[in-house]
């Protein structure tokens, strides 16, 4: 009856390599994307996200090549994004092997892009990524890699994005990202209650208990993490076994 809660490893890539950083800065190499993808596919990841963190035009062909190499390893869905501005760019990402595209800044700048992508590829293929940062009593939407305030309330923007045709919201807490202090439960719950599309919680994961909290209290449909999986600190298999034990519906790999 209920959908399994999804565990999604995220590969932040640059120049064909997986990189990782803390609070959107201080990058270091974390391996080959295709190798990591194969490992996560085997460990029981439910989906994979590949992001082009530099998102520069001249490196786009390298990113498309990364998508092709990653997709070849996967028997699970793949979302990809980073700097997608147009339908043509989205099409190239889909043709390279992604099932979904993620858009962030470009969707804030021109929300009609969400409707265009949704019209061409279907809502299930359009993930709107929101980077949110706490400001007094609300969460502010940040764009351009977190550098700039969009002057939008995250809850209203999530609703608007869904109304434009987003099939899913990838919600990153900028306050928690890289801190390993747990997901932002209040933020995730606020967005999840506000929209009728699935919400992927991101930012701050370290322990299995953090995942349990974000599913139970944060009402997340999926949870994303990067470095704890890349470093082998947390295996996806044992994380899912923990969640299943706690009564969360998850897909256990055979």
């Amino acid at each position, binding site marked *: 009856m209920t*959908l399994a809660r999804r565990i999604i490893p995220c590969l932040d890539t640059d120049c064909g390599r997986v990189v990782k950083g803390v609070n959107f800065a201080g990058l270091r190499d974390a391996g080959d994307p295709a190798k990591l993808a194969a490992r996560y596919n085997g460990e029981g990841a439910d989906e994979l996200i590949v992001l082009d963190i530099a998102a520069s035009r001249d490196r786009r062909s390298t990113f498309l090549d990364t998508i092709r190499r990653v997709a070849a390893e996967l028997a699970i869905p793949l979302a990809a994004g980073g700097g997608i501005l147009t339908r043509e760019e989205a099409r190239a990402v889909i043709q390279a092997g992604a099932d979904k595209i993620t858009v962030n800044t470009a969707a804030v700048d021109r929300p009609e892009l969400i409707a265009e992508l949704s019209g061409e590829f279907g809502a*299930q293929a359009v993930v709107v990524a929101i980077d949110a940062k706490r400001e007094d009593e609300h969460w502010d939407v940040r764009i351009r890699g977190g550098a700039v305030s969009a002057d939008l309330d995250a809850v209203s923007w999530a609703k608007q994005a869904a109304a434009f045709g987003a099939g899913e919201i990838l919600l990153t807490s900028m306050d928690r990202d890289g801190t390993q202090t747990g997901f932002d439960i209040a933020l995730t719950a606020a967005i999840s209650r506000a929209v009728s599309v699935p919400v992927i919680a991101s930012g701050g994961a370290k322990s299995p208990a953090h995942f349990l909290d974000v599913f139970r209290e944060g009402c997340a449909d999926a949870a994303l993490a990067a470095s704890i999986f890349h470093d082998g600190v947390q295996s996806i298999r044992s994380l899912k076994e923990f969640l299943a034990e706690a009564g969360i519906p998850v*897909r256990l790999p055979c």
Partner: protein
Amino acid sequence: MRITIIDHGPGNVASVERALARISISTERAISEQAIARATAVILPGVGHFSALVRALDENSLRAPLSRAIARGVPFLGICLGLQALYESSDEAPVLRGLGMLPGHVSALPAQSKLPHMGWNRVHPLPGSRLFRGIPVESYFYFAHSFAASPIASAETVATCTYGCEFVAAIERGNLFGVQFHPEKSGAAGAQLLRNFVRLAA
């Protein structure tokens, strides 16, 4: 053997090709009447809109060749929208006629649930289903859709799934097969289902 994948534009053709390549099955992409006429097994994949798929099939005059192929016993697997297109009609494009190879109508999933129905859900196959042979019961498969056929009064239905309501997850009738989920994205269980189809087609 080689499987002919109908390439009707926006779709998950490449994903299906990769999934079949992983189980060592060669494929060819096709959209012509001639290719369907000489096909030995056909997969109709599909993501996107019902109208886009049905129109693409009509623009390439594939209705009759597909019916003939199925009538002469060519194994056929419709995936997601490729299953929905086999029915008579869909809420997604009420004025268009589906392929009508299966009786019934494709309806919108109830709006009280989060839509699209996207993610991993449990599928309940009937005992004896050929597609689900060797797949553990209660296995999860990956879904991404907002429309589905109702299982009521359908002898072809061999598996159902529940999300807001019960709907058709898989059909089998002779050489005609269809699945609402994406076996090409469904991990080990999906790979086994594709292997079963290939075996039935061989």
